[in-house]
Every structure is written in structure tokens, then in C-alpha cells.
């Protein structure tokens, strides 16, 4: 599809999803219940160790695929199964179709198989005149509705019972009441005869075990057991990434899968099936179709290959703020959410993944819960770069990045000019409440801060620092928001660090950290900016480089290294910078042991804390700011979902997906309000802009502030007044 049309289509689908009643409520309720259940299921277990072991098993197979394929095939065939390796989706479908024709198959029952969704097997069979019935309750519901699953584990999670009752009534020709136990009963009765009548049963598998040549299948309903028992022919369609070396490996995966999928300790049934087991008077005919369909290509991609570790637990959807707003029909193709973006790119083509790639806000919630230790967000970012190179990132953006941002003086000059130009809309205030004409959508649901009269860089020399023997000399990397929108935050930082006898400098050659360019797919500009910033920040050989913005922190710590990895000279400089870069809270607590230096300076007001995505899941910092706030005298009133994204995501909330960002923010504001705190603290100017904007627009009497702002303010009010 050509790009503008594709984008327009996608935006329309987002709008439709936003209008769908119940969807956000249903998904939100599930997300809340899921987090608690998952926590209970893993209680007392070392999740990090478990996911290390899954990653290790999967990598072992990926690195030695031919060996395990052969071992599996030999053992499976020795037990009487037929194994077919399908290169493409068409090959797999053709094999199954030919088999069905050769055996005169009229009716097929299926238990849940994502691989068959991937190959569009049902369509192929139905076109050939074979009856295909999905037997998993959720799958049957979506089949009746003529839809595709919106979640890998819970296919019909987007529907309410009334919709299900309507579908079932059509299927039975009676009026079925919308009582869930009744609907489940109807499914039992309706599908029972189908198992008995079917000539062939199709299942997937959760593991294919090389050691035994057997399959492991995990279900709750018992439909896979019936599907693999009653019909005379059993076809298992299995992605080659499901191979594992031993029974222990299969056990490790099956142990984690239900816990991470729904918070269930173990599913009702785990079936270990090997070979041509007895069936009536004869032996069953078992065909195992191993599906490649892009998996080998994925294994070749050094950046993306970890995606092959996926065990299809669906957790990356459960915690994703974008999924929670629009659901899997919009945030997915066949496979959904974070992993869906990646698999779609490889299995169904980059074109089908293009819009999804842009819909990710980059909050890394998925990375934190993935049991296979896949850095989903980094892979998505990479795909965005590939897409940027293939399709371009749009002329306007490209011009800004290439021509303006790379030239620091020009870029900063334009920001200064913007501060003057905005005068008519700000009316001298610090917040923009309304924007004219077609920009108005952006201030409908949050105010936006004005660009400051004077950026921090122009104010720096007016900040007196009189330390005789400073403990450390640190350089401050401000980032655009801190420099041009919240310059007072820089003043606060100086105040706080001076209080602990640390001298702060501001290297004037620093430029944008490059994240906006990188996240839009312009790697070239991001690389140019990385070089400028490395030189600027290392020039005075500071002890540390301190940030107040966690996105900048990640950029300096992680992205620069990646951007410059091909160049040894720059790599070593990037490593140097990465090693000394730290966000302010961690610096104060971990390096200066500073929480005691602020003991009791603040009043007793109650504060709730919002975890910025990049601070908690990027830099691993969440304890430190809380410690600072509490030690300084605030009472901490934790909000629900404190580490859920606020919906900012840089340009995401402006030009990318403002409507999704708006809903995510609304949830955040509700959680803040419910905490009953007077103030919400955070450690990110981006979140500050988003949350402050939302609170102001809704006229909530709750203050939003950076942790450093609160500390500096407390110092000013106490005996440390200078």
C-alpha cells in the first residue's frame, strides 16, 4: 500500500478503536488484575534467573538449528510421525491441503495455533471446501465474528458477554442469554459433536523436544486433548523456534509460560505427545509441519534475532499502554503488541509493520516483563530506523533534523526566535492554554509550556557558585527541555549540588541528545549529534556528567555507544562518557550518599511519585528519588500504576499519536488524583510537561514538580538560605 494511504487507514482504525465502547475499560481491568496475579504467581521465584535460562535455551537452538532439527525429526519419525519442514506459509498450507485431499477429509477441528493464524490456514482450507472449526472458546468466538484474535492468549478479550451471546444465538438459532456459565455450556454442547465427526485435528505446540521427538501442548480448556485424540489424523503446525533440546528445557518454558501469561501457576493440561499413538483399531496418523516462514531470516538479523526467543505469553501486550488504549486489532497484525511489530516485519513484510512501528511510545514496560529477555523496544527502534531509511521520515521532519538540528547555533537560534514568536499566544504566561487553527488539537487536553525568555545557557553565568574545595566537578547535560523550557530547573540543580559541595559546569557546545531524530528513524542525524555532544561533555574532563532528563541519560549511556560502535576511536570516547553519565537522583543518593544531607528540610506535605519509563526501566532508578523525597520530610503517597507511562513520548504526543497519548494521560491523572497527594513528583522534564499540562487543563489543584525542584525549594526555605 502506498504510504500516505496506509497512514490514513491506520489513523482511521485508531479512531474507530477509540470510539469502541468498553474496549479500554475491559483492557484496563485485565491489565490491573494481570499485574497482581503475575506477581503472586512468581512470588518467591527469581524471575531474572528464570528468564536468563529461557533466553539461553532459545539461543542454543537458534545457534545450532540444523542439529536440533535433525535430532527432532529423527526421533519423531522413529516414533511414527511424519515431519515436513515448510519454508513458507504457502508450503505449509499446501502440505496440509494436499493431505486433506488425499485422505478425503471433509471436517477439521482445530485447537488454538498462532502459527496457523500466521499462515492464514483456515482461509486456505475453507476455500478448498473443507469445514474448519476452531474449538478454543475464544478462537471460536472470533471465528463466528469473522475477526482475528486480538490477543495471543485471550483471543476474544475485546468482546463483552453480550456480543458473545449475540454470536452464539446466531449459531444455535435460539436466544442465548448473556450469562457466562451458560455461554460456556453452549460452546461445550455445540462443539462436542464436531470432535466426534472430524476427520482431522489441527493443533499447534508450545515446544518440540529434540530429545524425544515429541511435542508439548499447554491448554486450559481440554480442547487440544480432544482434537489430538478423536480424529484419526493429527496435524501439528509448529514454528521452528519452538524447538528445545531436552525435556528439562521444555519444562522450564512451560513452568514460566502460564505464570507470565495470565498469572496462573500451571494450566489444567499439559500434554506430551510423541509418535503414532493408538487410535481406534489402528495407529494415529501424526504429521508435524515445522514452519520457517521468515524465521531463518530473522535469525540472520543480529539486531532483531532475539525475537525468536518469544514463547508467545502475550505479556508484552498486557502491560503496554498503547495496547490498553487501542487493543490488538489496531496494535498488531496477526501477532500483536511489541513482539507482533517485530514478527510482522519478518513474517508479513515491513509494509504491514510500518504503522505499528510508529505506534510504540517507547516506554519499555514490555521489556520489563518479557520472560525471554527480549529487548523489544530497542528492536522496534531499529525497525523504525530501517523504515526511515527505506521510506524517508517525511520531508518536514527530515529538513528539521538534517539542516537545523545538526547545526547547533541555527537550532538554538530558532528556539530563541520561537520564544519571541509565541508571545501572542502565551500572553506573557508560562503555559500555552490554546493554540490557534489546526494546532488547537494539541492544547485541547493539556496546556503546553512556553519556551522560556532566556534559556539556561544564557543564564548560566549569572548563577554564582562559590565552593572553595568542591568534592566533585560535574558537567550538566541539560537536554532541550531543561535548557529552553525549564531553565529554572538548572538553577535548582546548581542549588542542590552546591549544597553538597559539588561544582557544576554547563558546556555550551552541548546540543540536543538526538533522541527525537533517532526515534523518528534518522540515524545519521543522531550520530552527528552524538559526536557533538561527546566532544562537548568530555572537554573539561568532569568527574561526572549529570542529567535531569532520563531520556537524555539513556541516550548518553546507551544510544551513543550503539550509534558509534563501528568507529573504534569514537567508541572509546562514547564509553568514557557512558561510564560517567548519571541522573541526578542516583548521583545524590548513590555517589554522594546524600539523602542525609537533605534530612528534614522539606515540610510534611504529601507527595506521590511518577516513575518515568526511561528512568525506571532504562536507567534502573526508582528507589533513589523516593528515598530523597521521604528523607527530606515529605510523606510518600504511592499512586496506583506509578510506573505506567504518562503518554508523553516526545513527538509521539504531538504529531505521532496525540489521541492515544491523550487517553494514556487521562489514566495517569486519575491515578494521581486518587493518591490524594498535594503534589506529584517526577524526574523527567518530558513527563513534567505532559502531567503538568494535563493537571492544569483539568484545573486540578495538584502541583507537578521535578524532584530537584522540590529539594531546592526546601533548601531555600530553611536555614540554608543564602
Amino acid at each position, binding site marked *: 500500500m502506498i504510504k500516505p494511504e496506509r497512514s490514513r487507514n491506520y489513523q482511521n482504525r485508531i479512531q474507530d478503536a477509540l470510539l469502541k465502547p468498553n474496549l479500554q475499560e475491559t483492557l484496563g481491568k485485565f491489565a490491573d488484575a494481570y499485574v497482581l496475579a503475575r506477581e503472586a504467581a512468581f512470588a518467591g521465584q527469581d524471575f531474572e534467573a528464570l528468564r536468563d535460562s529461557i533466553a539461553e535455551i532459545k539461543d542454543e537452538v537458534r545457534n545450532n538449528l540444523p542439529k536440533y532439527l535433525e535430532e527432532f525429526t529423527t526421533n519423531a519419525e522413529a516414533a511414527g510421525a511424519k515431519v515436513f519442514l515448510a519454508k513458507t506459509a504457502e508450503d505449509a498450507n499446501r502440505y496440509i491441503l494436499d493431505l486433506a485431499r488425499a485422505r478425503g477429509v471433509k471436517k477439521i477441528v482445530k485447537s488454538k495455533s498462532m502459527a496457523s493464524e500466521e499462515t492464514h490456514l483456515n482461509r486456505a482450507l475453507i476455500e478448498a471446501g473443507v469445514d474448519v472449526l476452531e474449538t478454543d472458546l475464544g478462537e471460536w468466538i472470533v471465528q463466528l465474528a469473522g475477526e482475528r484474535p486480538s490477543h495471543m492468549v485471550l483471543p476474544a478479550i475485546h468482546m463483552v458477554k453480550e456480543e458473545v451471546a449475540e454470536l452464539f444465538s446466531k449459531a444455535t438459532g435460539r436466544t442465548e442469554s448473556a450469562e457466562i456459565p451458560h455461554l460456556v455450556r453452549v460452546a461445550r454442547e455445540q462443539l462436542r459433536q464436531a470432535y466426534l465427526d472430524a476427520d482431522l485435528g489441527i493443533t499447534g505446540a508450545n515446544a518440540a523436544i529434540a530429545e524425544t521427538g515429541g511435542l508439548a501442548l499447554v491448554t486450559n480448556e481440554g480442547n487440544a486433548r480432544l482434537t*489430538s485424540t478423536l480424529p484419526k489424523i493429527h496435524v501439528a503446525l509448529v514454528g521452528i523456534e519452538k524447538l528445545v533440546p531436552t525435556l*528439562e528445557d521444555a519444562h522450564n518454558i512451560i513452568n514460566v509460560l502460564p505464570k507470565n501469561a495470565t498469572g496462573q501457576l500451571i494450566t489444567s493440561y499439559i500434554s506430551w505427545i510423541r509418535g503414532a499413538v*493408538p487410535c481406534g483399531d489402528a495407529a494415529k496418523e501424526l504429521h508435524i509441519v515445522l514452519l520457517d516462514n521468515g524465521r531463518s531470516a530473522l535469525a540472520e538479523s543480529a539486531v532483531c534475532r532475539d525475537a525468536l526467543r518469544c514463547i508467545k505469553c502475550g505479556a508484552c501486550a498486557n502491560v503496554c499502554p498503547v495496547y490498553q488504549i487501542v487493543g490488538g486489532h489496531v496494535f498488531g497484525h496477526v501477532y500483536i503488541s511489541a513482539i507482533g511489530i517485530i514478527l510482522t516485519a519478518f513474517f508479513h513484510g515491513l509494509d504491514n509493520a510500518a504503522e505499528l512501528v510508529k505506534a510504540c511510545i517507547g516506554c519499555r514496560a514490555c521489556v520489563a516483563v518479557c520472560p525471554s529477555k527480549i529487548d523489544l523496544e530497542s528492536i522496534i527502534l531499529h525497525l523504525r530506523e530501517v523504515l526511515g531509511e527505506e521510506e524517508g521520515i517525511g520531508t518536514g521532519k527530515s529538513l528539521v533534523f538534517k539542516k537545523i538540528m545538526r547545526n547547533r547555533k541555527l537550532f538554538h537560534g530558532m528556539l530563541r526566535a520561537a520564544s519571541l514568536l509565541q508571545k501572542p499566544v502565551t500572553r506573557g504566561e508560562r503555559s500555552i492554554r490554546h493554540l490557534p487553527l489546526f494546532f488547537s488539537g494539541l492544547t485541547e487536553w493539556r496546556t503546553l509550556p512556553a519556551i522560556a525568555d532566556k534559556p539556561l545557557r544564557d543564564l548560566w553565568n549569572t548563577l554564582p557558585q562559590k565552593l572553595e574545595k568542591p568534592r566533585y566537578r560535574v558537567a550538566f547535560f541539560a537536554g532541550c527541555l531543561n535548557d529552553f523550557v525549564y531553565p529554572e530547573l538548572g538553577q535548582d540543580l546548581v542549588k542542590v549540588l552546591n549544597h553538597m559541595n559539588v561544582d557544576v559546569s554547563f558546556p555550551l557546545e552541548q546540543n540536543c541528545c538526538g533522541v527525537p531524530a533517532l526515534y523518528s528513524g534518522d540515524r545519521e542525524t543522531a550520530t552527528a549529534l552524538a559526536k557533538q555532544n561527546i566532544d562537548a561533555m568530555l572537554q573539561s574532563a568532569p568527574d561526572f556528567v549529570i542529567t535531569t532528563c532520563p531520556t537524555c541519560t539513556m541516550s548518553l549511556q546507551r544510544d551513543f555507544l550503539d550509534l558509534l560502535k563501528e568507529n573504534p576511536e569514537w567508541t572509546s570516547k562514547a564509553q568514557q562518557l557512558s561510564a560517567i553519565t548519571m541522573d541526578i537522583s542516583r548521583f545524590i543518593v548513590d555517589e554522594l550518599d546524600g539523602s542525609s544531607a537533605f534530612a528534614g528540610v522539606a515540610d510534611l506535605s504529601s507527595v506521590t511519585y511518577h516513575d518515568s519509563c526511561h528512568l525506571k526501566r532504562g536507567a534502573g532508578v526508582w528507589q533513589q528519588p523516593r528515598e530523597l523525597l521521604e528523607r527530606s520530610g515529605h510523606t510518600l503517597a504511592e499512586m496506583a500504576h506509578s510506573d505506567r507511562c504518562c503518554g508523553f513520548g516526545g513527538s509521539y504526543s504531538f504529531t505521532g499519536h496525540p489521541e492515544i497519548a491523550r487517553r494514556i494521560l487521562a489514566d495517569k491523572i486519575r491515578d494521581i488524583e486518587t493518591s490524594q497527594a498535594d503534589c506529584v513528583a517526577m524526574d523527567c522534564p518530558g513527563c513534567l510537561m505532559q502531567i503538568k499540562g494535563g493537571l492544569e487543563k483539568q484545573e486540578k489543584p495538584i502541583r507537578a514538580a521535578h524532584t530537584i525542584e522540590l529539594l531546592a525549594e526546601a533548601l531555600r526555605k530553611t536555614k540554608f538560605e543564602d
Partner: protein
Amino acid sequence: MDDFIAALTKVNGCCEQVADIGAAAAYIARHSDGPLLLPPQPSLLRIGLREELVRAGLPVIDNDWRAQAPTADSGITGANFAIAATGSIVLDSTQEAVRLASTLPERHFVLLDPAKILPEATDGIPIVRRIHQETPQTYLAYITGPSRTADIERVLTIGVHGPAELHILLLPGLSDDPMES
């Protein structure tokens, strides 16, 4: 054994300790409501469960499985071993009759010797491996509670396609051999 019972109860399974075969038959009589599928399980044959059930006046089916399974009310099997941590029983279901008895009917009764309860799932893997080594074709089932779904509005509902009731009868002295059920 206490851990096993607690875990099984959590997943909506029923557990009853029975003193002897007569008590087991009486329990089954109380909780079933129609024909009983009784596949030839070595441990159950040895103790003469079939005769006991017949004596209690229960309709037992022990042949022509495929034809009779769809109308049976209950299935009765033994178990190879069980896992305390999760409340699971592990059943070699390679024989088709065992599979039919444990998948199609409304109720599934399992007679288990408490001596076969292992503490953790990992303890069972060597047995699973041995079963694979000794039988060329294998269909092995871990069964944890009755059949369930949460596919409509995430509401847990018991008894979709598999048995809606799972009764585990703990009968000491039945068999402590994990290679037989």
C-alpha cells in the same frame, strides 16, 4: 500430601482420602450419575475395582470405548505420579481408552496412592524421561484441576471441553510404581 490437597483445592479439584476399595467405590457411586468408563489400568485391575463398582450397582463400561465414550458420565483412571506443589496428577494416556476416559465425560475420578506424590514438578522429569524411553509412542498428560476457561470477559468458568469435575481419591497401598497407572 497436605500440600497436594491444598494445591488441588485451589484449582477447584476435589480430594478425598479413602481407606479401602469399598470406600472408593462408594465415593464414586455418590458422585457419579451414569455410565462409568473404566479403561484397563494395571493398578485398578489388581485391586478389583471393576468388581467392586459392579457390586455397588454401577454401570461400568470396559470395552468398545470409542462408541460408548460420548455418552459416559464419568471416567476412572489411576495415575503414574503426582506433584504436591501444583496439585497435578501425571497420567500415561498412551492407551486410547485412558485418553477417552479422561477427556470426554463430565467427571474424571483418579485413584492415587499418596506414596506417589512428589514435592516439585522437576522431581517428575526423570520419570517422564523413563516413560518416553520405555514406550515408543507416548501420550502423557499432566492434569491440574478440571477443564477451565477465562475467554469471556476474563471470568473463570469451569468445565468447557474437558471434565467439569476432577475427583482425586487418595488410596494408600494402591501402587507405588510410577511406571504404572
